[in-house]
């Protein structure tokens, strides 16, 4: 799959933002007044900034409101609905903390649940794709959810929780990579089933339909990015999990916490780039490519 910068930025930032909002909704840290204001500003900048980045890859962003209508079948529509519900609920809860020094707690719990639900709907947009076997498994939502919680814990300054959640997120990420490697072969889709010509013999692509490229090849067949997959996994794993865990174990100050967050975000960007670059769409088979 083509690793579009808008989608990588969107899923990374909004995952972090909704992770932070989840912790704020749970009252972790227990803040009010100006401190609460700045925590909520960070959460909203990340979540809303991510959402607006996703609008850049639309052909017609001016019609985006229509995307709230098909929640019965479409995970993208469900994501739109839950994200707005989460942002509105958390805005009310945040207003209580900032302006009235009161935690309207049930509202916070609902907001936290909706924030996590938003991350889950994002992950399901990818998980539902039977056409991309690497994504079509339970480890995809597990990776998105644990990563969002780990990043949220880091941003919320929850040192102990963040160590535990970073470990968990690291494990689901490694599981997603290793199990993901076997998914295409196990999907049962190959050139024989794609063309129906398998019972005659071995199928090879002889000539593509056109001399140039096309939308399908640009969007779905991204071979270049996989070349350094192993090295990038190592870099992503070190930056996103190992370095922040070590920093949080050593000594928690504002400087180490900031460094841990920066390292984590850089690592998640690398992991998310790989999430798209390593994903192979079955349509590539028609072109004899993966």
């Amino acid at each position, binding site marked *: 799959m083509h690793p579009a910068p808008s989608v990588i930025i969107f899923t990374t930032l909004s995952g972090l933002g909704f992770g932070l909002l989840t912790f704020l909704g749970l009252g972790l840290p227990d803040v009010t007044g100006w401190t609460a204001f700045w925590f909520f500003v960070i959460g909203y900048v990340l979540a809303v900034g991510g959402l607006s980045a996703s609008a850049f890859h639309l*052909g*017609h962003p001016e019609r*985006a409101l229509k995307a709230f209508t098909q929640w019965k*079948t479409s995970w993208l529509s469900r994501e739109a609905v839950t994200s707005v519900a989460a942002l509105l609920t958390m805005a009310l809860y945040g207003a209580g903390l900032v302006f009235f020094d009161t935690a309207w707690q049930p509202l916070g719990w609902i907001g936290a649940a909706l924030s996590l639900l938003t991350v889950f709907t994002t992950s399901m947009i990818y998980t539902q794709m039977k056409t991309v076997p690497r994504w079509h498994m339970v480890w995809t939502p597990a990776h998105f959810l644990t990563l969002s919680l780990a990043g949220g814990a880091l941003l919320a300054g929850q040192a102990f929780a963040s160590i535990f959640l970073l470990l968990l997120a690291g494990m689901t990420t490694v599981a997603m990579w290793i199990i993901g490697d076997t998914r295409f072969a196990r999907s049962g889709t190959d050139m024989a089933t794609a063309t129906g010509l398998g019972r*005659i013999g071995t199928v090879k692509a002889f000539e593509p*339909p056109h001399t140039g490229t096309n*939308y399908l090849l640009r969007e779905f067949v991204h071979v270049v990015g996989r070349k350094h997959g192993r090295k990038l996994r190592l870099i992503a794993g070190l930056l996103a999990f190992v370095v922040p865990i070590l920093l949080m174990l050593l000594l928690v100050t504002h400087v180490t916490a900031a460094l841990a967050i920066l390292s984590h975000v850089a690592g998640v960007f690398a992991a998310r780039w790989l999430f798209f670059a390593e994903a192979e769409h079955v*349509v590539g088979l028609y072109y004899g490519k993966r």
Partner: protein
Amino acid sequence: MTQLPAQTQKKLGLVIDLDTCVGCHACVISCKGWNTENYGAPLSDQDAYGANPSGTFLNRVHSYSVQPLATSAKPHPAAQTIHFPKSCLHCEDAPCVTVCPTGASYKRTEDGIVLVNESDCIGCGLCAWACPYGARELDAAEGVMKKCTLCVDRIYNENLPEVDRTPACVRTCPAGARHFGDFADPESNVSRLTAERGGLDLMPEQGTKPVNKYLPPRPKDEMPEFDVLAPYLEPVAENPGGFIGWLDRALEKL
């Protein structure tokens, strides 16, 4: 709405005969011609006369080389070239429809055609992700999703002579490799062809239940083992007589 109909009254679709297709790409051209001038946004091209041309097509013809397995009777079987037109298969369980966030993609209850309402399409591209066949292409100029309409503006069009009320690709195919009809009717041309020739689904394991069927190439004829020209090349006379015979003998003695 992006909920799929439980059942459609008709199941309109195509049968594509891989035995007959000669790979001339006439269906590609007639499809682009009709659909760029009629239903919905035109099918744009980018850099059409430049170094890196690309464009939107609703139907494309691939070519494959298939190498049969060697057997003891045939240790070196010849590879076959098979031309393979591909367009939307108008699936019964169309995954492209249910993922659409705006309701722009839908499957018609009356005839099962999968269409895009372009004024509702936000161009997110998710339906193209969900399609395993590469049947949907986002138009680079219009920013909306384009796909085969089964020429919905021809097949019911009473302004056209009756013979033209078929999809443009079917109407133009010079080899007769494309057939249009209703799969819900077991007596239709397409249902009978599918039954007689063992029509196939593409990627059945994807669970899309495609309506369009592909007829597999028939087994190749066996080449005769003898040389067809041999009888005509045998010497006319083995033991010539007369003047030629005398000349032959005289020259032998020299």
